[in-house]
């Protein structure tokens, strides 16, 4: 008897909720309970919070459209010289030998997790790279400081903004370092524009990385990386030269090590 009455009452309550904004909220709560957390977080195209890592590791950036890198003559020579010097041992990768941070765009391809945190005050979004615990602080909806006030940094100076479901990150002022793990050099005018967008129902994050450097390349070109959402991964402490996360299972890593 009481059961029946309660049920009736809950029916009343449900009727109250349906036809008001409450109905949508209950529906949302119900769906959230049914779906895995990762899929649910994925439903908000502008919520990138959490840990991501590359689906595949490839040491080289190449244009995603299959065209060759549009080197200037000086750029081609600089890259050929770098490759030759690496082979001879006269040029070393200071990120590996001296634990100097990899910069933008190189670190975006690293086979280690990235924790993306979008500050609730809306002022910064940070990419925390487990590799060498490098933070890329992206100032949201700001303009770049003028040239004199740019920080001289391997990660450069980053500003970001949203347009639709795409986060655009613009980075300038990078210290001289390698553009990718093969030793591709850049000169002082490197400009990197990232377009980040959730794909595959929010379980993956696409990063279209546009690289502009008039001294090296005749025109901007765009490499692509895809990160997978890692619901159960937390950033580990990374200590240069010590045994860190085992990344041998990341596709592409074993081949690159050989």
């Amino acid at each position, binding site marked *: *008897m*009481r059961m029946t*009455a*309660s049920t*009736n*009452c*809950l029916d*009343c*309550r449900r009727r109250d909720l349906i036809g008001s904004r409450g109905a949508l909220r209950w529906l949302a709560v119900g769906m959230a309970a049914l779906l895995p957390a990762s899929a649910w977080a994925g439903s908000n195209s502008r919520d990138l*919070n959490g840990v991501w890592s590359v689906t595949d590791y490839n040491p080289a950036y190449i244009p995603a459209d299959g065209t060759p890198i549009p080197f200037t003559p000086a750029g081609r020579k600089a890259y050929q010289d770098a490759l030759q010097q690496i082979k001879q041992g006269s040029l070393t990768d200071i990120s590996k030998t*001296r*634990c*100097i*941070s990899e910069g933008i765009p190189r670190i975006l391809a690293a086979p280690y997790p990235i*924790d993306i*945190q*979008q*500050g*609730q*005050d809306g*002022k*910064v979004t*940070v990419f*925390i790279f487990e590799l*060498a*615990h*490098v*933070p890329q*602080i992206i*100032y949201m909806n700001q303009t770049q*400081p003028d040239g004199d*006030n*740019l*920080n*001289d*940094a*391997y*990660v450069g100076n980053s500003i970001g903004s949203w347009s639709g479901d795409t986060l655009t990150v613009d980075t300038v002022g990078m210290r001289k370092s390698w553009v990718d793990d093969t030793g591709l050099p850049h000169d002082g005018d490197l400009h990197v524009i990232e377009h980040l967008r959730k794909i595959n129902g929010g379980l993956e994050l696409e990063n279209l990385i546009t690289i502009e450097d008039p001294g090296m390349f005749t025109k901007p070109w765009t490499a692509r990386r895809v990160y997978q959402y890692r619901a159960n991964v*937390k*950033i*580990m*402490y990374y*200590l240069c030269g010590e045994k860190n996360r085992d990344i041998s299972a990341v596709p592409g890593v074993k081949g690159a090590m050989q």
Partner: protein
Amino acid sequence: MTPCGWAMALVALGVCRASAAPAPAPDFSGVWMHSPGTAIRSGAAHKSAGEAAKGVVGGTGEFRRALSYTLDDRPVPLQPWAAAIVKQYSDAAAANKPLADPVTLCLPSGTPIFLTQPYPYQIVQTPKQITIISEANQEIRFIYMNQGHPANLKPAPFGNSVGHWEDGTLVVDTIGQTDKTLFATVGVPHTKALHVVERFRLSKDGNQLEDLITIDDPGTFTNSWQTLWRLNRRPDVRLLEYICADGDQDQNEMTHGPTTRP
């Protein structure tokens, strides 16, 4: 009243309780920095400006003593083996042959010494995670909200930090640190059992962040003790890249007062 009526009353009560929910958590987002004289206080009396208390930490040299005095301005209560290590450090310093500490060697600092550097900190807050980025050596602490410590915790330099809100205070519990970091750069060691509880809260005007720290490590200290630090909000400061091996940045701001930075 019919059972349905009672149920309705309960629903109504639920609504009332929901409307009396605790105030939203304060927002610690932004850049924070110690400043000379007002930076780190361990002295309970909070000595007046200019009066030197051992626990009031301002200049670089004093920063390095930040965790060697308690809130009531006494030396930290060391067990004999720990006191012997501190003596090694102080004897070496007196002989002008200071022993290197992990921070000087660009190695991880640890919790809570992490928060004693004369460099800015960026706090990035979300409901699920509070991330503190220290400019110094690009150290980063992750505070995972509303969860317990994982089982089978593997010791790590900063340990595992979990947090929750208590009436506007962020309570952070940290365990699981290695014993390889020094507790204070004057040589204070600790064991893997170090347990740190931090209580962060904002000043009324929102411009100061206070961290009341309770330290418990029976293997190192004869009793648990407390220290208190304050950081100032610095909307004018952006973190710089800090490459430890490069000797990137000077500490002018801390030793000679604020300077303008981009």
